């Protein structure tokens, strides 16, 4: 069967390649080459799919922002909204602004040059008029170049402002002055809220958490002012007094959960370095303190209210570990899932939160610069749809370990341990705000990700972490007829863990086109799929899952139909796609099989909700791995393309095409989906 297909090229390939001989098509870029989807069999990628490079001249291309940080769904921006509507593809940006970078130019200049009207930071795509003035590329206003900017500290030369590092790099980090601070930079403050009910002790997560904390206590990002605190809760809330002079940690129990209060005004959040011995004692004793507990209730709401009260003066990060449905006090939840409806093809209910308690709490926390991260380690339904709100709007992150048990489920236990290590030691930014600016004519109308939208383009993030991705959708308000380039700038103002106020700026420049064919030539299929995934999650929650699935299918159908109607020399009976979109139907099909969107197969509600949260908060590179995993063949390792790690030669298995026909009985294969192997 396979051999027959390979020998039969098909008439249409012939006609399209003959068509390529004409003068008109010889200028056709590779990305617009028509691919016959019903005939071509070898379109699956063998190596990782690169991001499309925008069609700019080579100087601008070198300076442009890396696609890992900043990516647009259409690398050729349509000139008018009407043209965008004809293309039937969404226009949006996918951002990963705080990702771990190996090379980052840090500017410590005393003046940060910004446009006077739109406050854009100076970037490689501005134009300098007569060496003393510069024209903003977002609002076109002419600004003066300040005196200090004329001097270039790197080359010690004067009079060449365009050689300065701010203008030579599209990703820079500024050290901000006190004008950018509303209050002195806060110290790193970490609070751990731990569930110690009978269920939690059964699952045994406490030993892993305490062990991990003991190992990583010195590696927590921060400086000498770092503070740490612990709260445990079951049907009451327990606080721990870790004051420096005490001989051992003191537990204070508050049982009035309807009107929670803090038992002592301070010494519940203590300086890490001063009380280190006490903290270590507490961590060693904690797993054994609750072994014989008979408490089955969980008062999560009151514990969170207490945590908020504790953190409001400074801000910081709250890490919540929960193992069951909160059953006591404010914010108690009921079991809403019907196990018989798990494989329902019709309506999937209860995808949205049941109460606004967690949303209100998240907004309060966000206002006090506190982020709430949730670790859900439950074996039964815990209404993640409602609990996730506490992280979604306070810029936290959500980790979910279904059927967690430290001895019965060692795979989950190991995963939890590794995730916890990364979580505790990764870079963190506090009291952050992010602003996304675009060239005049474009505007942003919808935001996706874990943050609170404080005003039309200002996103308030209590914490930023390097594993968070964001997406925004844009529309073209005014026609971009008088410009050939548009720029986007993301500015992230944050306090580093060492107490420095910094601004990370990414700038992306893209060309403007006026023909539909060019729009398709520049389509970035991976970015389109990720943005559609975000939109589909929103649609599932606001209307219904089947609506979202239909919308995803319609997105492919409409865009390919629009392409076929423009490329007039192709026969209508075949399904043709431009080379840039040849994987589009494949990716959408893969998306429809994800836990978030699948119907007909038994999916637990929490699993589904978690998959949806992941789609909205992960950066593009992780999301694509989840949708289209990497398949490796590991029994036939070859010697080429080996890498050297720690003085050992590690052979790299070749990447296979992700297709069932590549699997054979005699081989061993490894599939890497990002979060599982």
């Amino acid at each position: 069967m396979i051999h027959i297909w390979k020998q039969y090229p098909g008439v249409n390939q012939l006609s399209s390649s003959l068509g390529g001989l004409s003068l008109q098509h010889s200028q056709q870029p590779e990305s617009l080459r028509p691919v016959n989807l019903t005939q071509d069999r070898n379109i699956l990628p063998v190596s990782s799919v690169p991001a499309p490079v925008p069609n700019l001249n080579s100087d601008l291309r070198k300076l442009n922002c890396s696609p890992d940080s900043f990516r647009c769904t259409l690398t050729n921006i349509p000139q008018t909204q009407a043209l965008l509507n004809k293309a039937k593809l969404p226009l949006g940006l996918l951002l990963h602004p705080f990702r771990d970078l190996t090379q980052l130019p840090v500017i410590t200049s005393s003046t940060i040059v910004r446009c006077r009207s739109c406050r854009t930071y100076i970037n490689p795509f501005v134009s300098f008029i007569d060496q003393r003035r510069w024209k903003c590329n977002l609002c076109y206003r002419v600004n003066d170049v300040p005196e200090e900017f004329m001097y270039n500290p790197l080359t010690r030369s004067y009079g060449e402002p365009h050689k300065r590092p701010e203008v030579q790099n599209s990703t820079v980090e500024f050290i901000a002055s006190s004008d950018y601070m509303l209050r002195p930079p806060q110290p790193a403050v970490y609070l751990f809220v731990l569930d110690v009910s009978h269920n939690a002790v059964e699952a045994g997560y406490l030993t892993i958490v305490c062990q991990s904390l003991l190992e990583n206590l010195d590696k927590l990002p921060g400086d000498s002012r770092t503070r740490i605190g612990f709260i445990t809760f079951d049907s009451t809330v327990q606080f721990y007094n870790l004051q420096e002079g005490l001989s051992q940690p003191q537990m204070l129990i508050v049982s009035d959960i309807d009107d929670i209060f803090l038992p002592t005004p301070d010494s519940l959040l203590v300086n890490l370095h001063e009380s280190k011995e006490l903290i270590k004692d507490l961590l060693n004793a904690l797993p054994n303190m609750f072994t014989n507990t008979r408490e089955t209730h969980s008062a999560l709401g009151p514990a969170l209210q207490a945590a908020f009260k504790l953190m409001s003066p400074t801000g910081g990060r709250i890490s919540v570990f929960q193992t069951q449905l909160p059953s006591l006090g404010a914010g108690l939840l009921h079991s809403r899932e019907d196990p018989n409806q798990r494989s329902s093809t019709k309506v999937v209910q209860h995808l949205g939160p049941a109460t606004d308690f967690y949303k209100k709490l998240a907004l309060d926390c966000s206002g006090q610069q506190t982020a709430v991260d949730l670790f859900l380690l439950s074996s039964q339904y815990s209404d993640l749809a409602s609990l996730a709100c506490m992280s979604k709007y306070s810029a936290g992150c959500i980790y979910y370990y279904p059927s967690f048990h430290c001895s019965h489920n060692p795979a989950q236990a190991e995963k939890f341990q590794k995730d916890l290590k990364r979580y505790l030691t990764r870079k963190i930014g506090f009291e952050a705000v992010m602003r996304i600016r675009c060239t005049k004519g474009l505007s942003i109308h919808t935001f996706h990700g874990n943050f609170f939208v404080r005003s039309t383009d200002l996103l308030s993030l209590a914490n930023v972490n390097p594993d968070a991705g964001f997406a925004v959708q844009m529309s073209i308000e005014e026609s971009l007829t008088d410009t050939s380039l548009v720029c986007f700038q993301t500015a992230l103002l944050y306090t580093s863990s060492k107490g420095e106020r910094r601004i990370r700026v990414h700038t992306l420049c893209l060309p403007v086109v006026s023909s539909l064919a060019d729009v398709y030539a520049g389509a970035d299929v991976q970015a389109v799929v990720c943005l559609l995934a975000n939109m589909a999650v929103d649609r599932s929650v606001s209307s219904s899952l089947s609506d979202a699935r239909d919308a995803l299918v319609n997105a492919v159908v409409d865009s390919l139909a629009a392409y076929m109607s423009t490329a007039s020399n192709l026969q209508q009976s075949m399904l043709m796609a431009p080379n840039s979109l040849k994987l589009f139907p494949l990716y959408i099909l893969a998306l429809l099989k994800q836990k978030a969107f699948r119907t007909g197969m038994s999916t637990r509600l929490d699993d589904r909700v978690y998959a949806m949260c992941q789609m909205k908060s992960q950066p593009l590179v992780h999301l694509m791995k989840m949708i289209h995993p990497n398949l490796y063949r590991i029994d036939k390792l070859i010697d080429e393309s080996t890498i050297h790690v720690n003085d050992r030669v590690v052979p790299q298995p070749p990447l296979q095409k992700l297709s069932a026909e590549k699997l054979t009985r005699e081989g061993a294969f490894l599939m890497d989906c990002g979060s599982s192997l």
Partner: protein
Amino acid sequence: MESVVFIFSLIDCCALIFLSVYFIITLSDLECDYINARSCCSKLNKWVVPEVIGHAIVTVLMLISLHWFIFLLNLPVATWNIYRYIMVPSGNMGVFDPTEIHNRGQLKSHMKEAMIKLGFHLLCFFMYLYSMILALIND
């Protein structure tokens, strides 16, 4: 009797006009960044139920006093108000939710809705004024 009905509806309509104007002012404050989303939404959510009740009273009053045309005119707006209030998703903090208001052009649609209601209430105001004068003359 007629004139009392129309005097009362006139006053009620006045109150609804003021309420629409308040909504428009608060929403445009949010657009221009004079207030933040949370305070804007809590201010507006406080007045959603009074608006629903106020409009429902006028509609019912018209029904009771057998003024069919005006009743039918007010009915769609009253049902839309009640529908909007009932269909708030369970996780949202009221009709105006601070986390959703900047998403998907909701701010613009709320503004448009408030403008349409303002226009409608102004029209109704003049209708009641005319009917009241007519009723007072006929008495």
